[in-house]
């Protein structure tokens, strides 16, 4: 391998790439599929149990969301979610438990900077953008729908 100190940027980045550990796409996708599928199935179990006790379908979805968010926060607090994430990748990020994890994990990290500007402000470091873009999109959708309704 060429270890010339006068390498160009391109050569250097090729060199780094050749040394970097190859991430195994097939295996990553399989693990994301498996863990994501399991988390969603747990959600379905919670929803089915709620509906078994006579809860309406829409409320059952609400309960499922609340329970999963609780589980995500709890598993993050006891430092287990990061371990799952290492294996599962997107399988632990994309489900709603990952949203919960994205709130708790920076909050814990910045706790030492105080309860308001440390913990409080950093809770929404990742979840904040999700709400900003999600809610803004929903308002746009609502507005477009309202306009369409005016002319129908």
């Amino acid at each position, binding site marked *: 391998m060429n270890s010339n100190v006068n390498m160009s940027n391109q050569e250097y980045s090729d060199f780094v790439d050749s040394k970097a550990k190859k991430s195994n796409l097939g295996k990553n*996708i399989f693990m*994301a*599929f*498996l*863990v*994501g*599928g399991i*988390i*969603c*199935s747990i*959600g*379905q179990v919670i*929803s089915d149990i709620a509906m078994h006790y006579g809860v309406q379908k829409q409320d059952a979805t*609400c309960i*499922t*969301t*609340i329970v*999963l*968010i609780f589980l995500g*926060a*709890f598993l*993050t*607090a*006891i*430092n287990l979610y990061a371990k799952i994430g290492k294996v599962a*990748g*997107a*399988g632990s*990020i*994309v*489900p*709603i438990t*990952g*949203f919960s994890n*994205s*709130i*708790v994990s920076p909050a*814990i*990290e910045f*706790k030492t900077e105080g309860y308001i500007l440390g*913990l*409080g402000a950093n*809770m929404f*470091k*990742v*979840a904040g*953008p*999700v*709400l900003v*873009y*999600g*809610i803004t*999109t*929903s*308002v746009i*959708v*609502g*507005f477009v*729908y*309202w306009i369409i309704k005016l002319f129908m």
Partner: protein
Amino acid sequence: MDIFIMYLKVFLTGGIICSIGQILIDKTKLTPARILVIFVTLGTILTAIGIYGPIVEFGGAGATVPISGFGYCLANGVIKEVDAIGFLGIFIGGVKATAAGIASAVVFGFLASLIAKPSIK
């Protein structure tokens, strides 16, 4: 048997949605934060144009548990509220439908961070 097929559908749908996220992470080097934002926005838009609804019908929790399901709630909520109360519904519907998720995320997130000790990595 019916319940087995239903859970298979849930597993498949959830798995596929997460796999799409994994492909995006590996192929485009998008950060998890961007993945979450993209998924919630796409979920909202796909629901509004009538694509995500049938996916939820098919996959149940497999489509509502991923963060794109949060977008599904937002879009459905806003449309329902505009139908019910008109213009004001534009600003009320989305957050109203996702209020349980947002409030529980704030409260459980806060409590969990209070209890947890910062870890030395």
